[in-house]
């Protein structure tokens, strides 16, 4: 058994990361005490991070008694398997079909919604941004339908309590609000996706989330920091690529 009071749990993370947020909330749901190790992204990566996740060098990384677990959804499955006692709520449902459904949609969140959202926030092309915003909205529309069909009653995808898919999508709400401010629209508009809008409110107000949810205005500021860092990096890359000006003879 991997549980017990002798457990040492650390989370290598970064306050603005939605993927780190998933793990924080999952640990909170299970009542697991952990030490939070904050990375100084985008400015640097600690040796611990590089050693713990040499393949991707990304947060979050969960360190459980020194052993690293990487990739947020994989960490969620790990947390659910390790801290699976009568007292702790389950993150994934028990029925295999329901688990498959949750996993399917969580993959969709990452591959469709997050990918489009990230692209829209990064791209400098107006045309591409428009397409990616549209793609994000399509993705959210699918989640609205999924919520309508699958929640079996209850405020969350997981039913009465927060589950795997709630964590997957809910962690993006802050950044969807950032994107909304950038584009001058509401990505969780109650007129377009009423159930999802209500769900987002419930998620953000829930106990395991409200203390760790990053403030939207702080995320907006952080985005500016990221953009400046990216611009500096591409300017440096461009300068390095430019051949030296030959001196006049």
């Amino acid at each position, binding site marked *: 058994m*991997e549980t017990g009071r002798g457990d040492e749990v650390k989370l290598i993370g970064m306050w603005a990361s939605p993927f780190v947020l998933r793990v924080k909330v999952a640990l909170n749901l299970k009542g697991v005490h952990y030490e939070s190790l904050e990375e100084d992204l985008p400015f640097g990566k600690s040796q611990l991070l590089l050693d713990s996740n040499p*393949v991707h060098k990304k947060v979050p990384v969960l360190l*459980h008694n020194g*052993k690293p*677990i*990487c*990739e947020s959804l*994989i*960490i969620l*499955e*790990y947390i659910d*398997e*390790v801290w699976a006692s009568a007292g702790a709520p389950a993150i994934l449902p028990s029925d*295999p*079909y329901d*688990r*498959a459904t949750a*996993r*399917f949609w969580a*993959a*969709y969140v990452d*591959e469709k919604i997050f990918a489009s959202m990230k692209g829209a926030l990064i791209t400098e092309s107006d045309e591409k941004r428009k397409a990616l915003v549209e793609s994000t909205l399509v993705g959210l529309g*699918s989640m609205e339908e999924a919520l309508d069909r699958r929640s079996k009653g209850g405020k969350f995808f997981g039913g009465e309590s927060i589950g795997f898919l709630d964590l997957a999508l809910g962690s993006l709400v802050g950044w969807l609000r950032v994107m909304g401010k950038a584009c001058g629209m509401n990505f969780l508009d109650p007129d377009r996706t009423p159930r999802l809008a209500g769900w987002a409110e419930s998620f953000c107000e829930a106990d395991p989330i409200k203390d760790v949810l990053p403030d939207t205005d702080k995320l907006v500021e952080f985005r500016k920091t990221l953009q400046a860092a990216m611009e500096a990096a591409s300017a440096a890359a461009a300068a390095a690529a430019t051949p030296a000006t030959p001196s006049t003879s």
Partner: protein
Amino acid sequence: MGDARVKLLGSWASSYCHRVLLALRLKGVEFEYLEEDLSNKSPLLLLHNPVHKKVPVLLHDEKPVAESVVILEYIDETWKENPILPEAPHDRSVARFWVHFVEEKLGPAIGKVFQSAGEEQKAAAEQVSEYLKLVERELKEGRFKGRRFFGGETIGILDIVLGCGSYWLSVLEQVAGVNLIDVAAFPCFHAWLKEFESLAEVREAIPAQERLLEHARSVRQMMAMMTAPAWTKTEVPTAVSDEAAPVALTK
């Protein structure tokens, strides 16, 4: 066997479908196989996978499960014989990590080699090499050191996911003329692949190389006939994208 409880919608050349076929065979699950014509998708496929409209789709008592890795986990949880995921949570997380690596990094990089030419292809091949080095290291001195398979003495989910795309490497070498797995550079990977391909269940699940070779050649020819300046995934027509491409960029 018209009323089979388990059905698989698939496409004969799709490595994603081979994964599911292999898992079902390993577990001794009886199922009915339904071949999809990807250029003319059946109402059944569109009904059961409206989001992606792709194969494979597993139907269990008419309830659909889509996305090959999701299906593999479902199969493992539903039919307990010959488990394909390890028992210990940390070992499971490691297997899932490398499965995700194949899905997100290695697979798409191999797909890019197939779909590109010239300098772009050279860069894509180098990327494949970098990724394979990581896998090689895990086999040689890392988490999977000394094992016959990634799953141990018997194959597991990572063997299935990596194995059902790896035979494409030699097909691609012949079709695209790019050397991707130099035996000298990747001895452990080669040894593992030989073990994997020697299994009866694997030989039954995966079509003969000549058929795959012919298929890959015709797909690449179709791509070449298009006058797009660079071969990218978005420019490939639906009939030959994703499921039909040897290693698709998405599932």
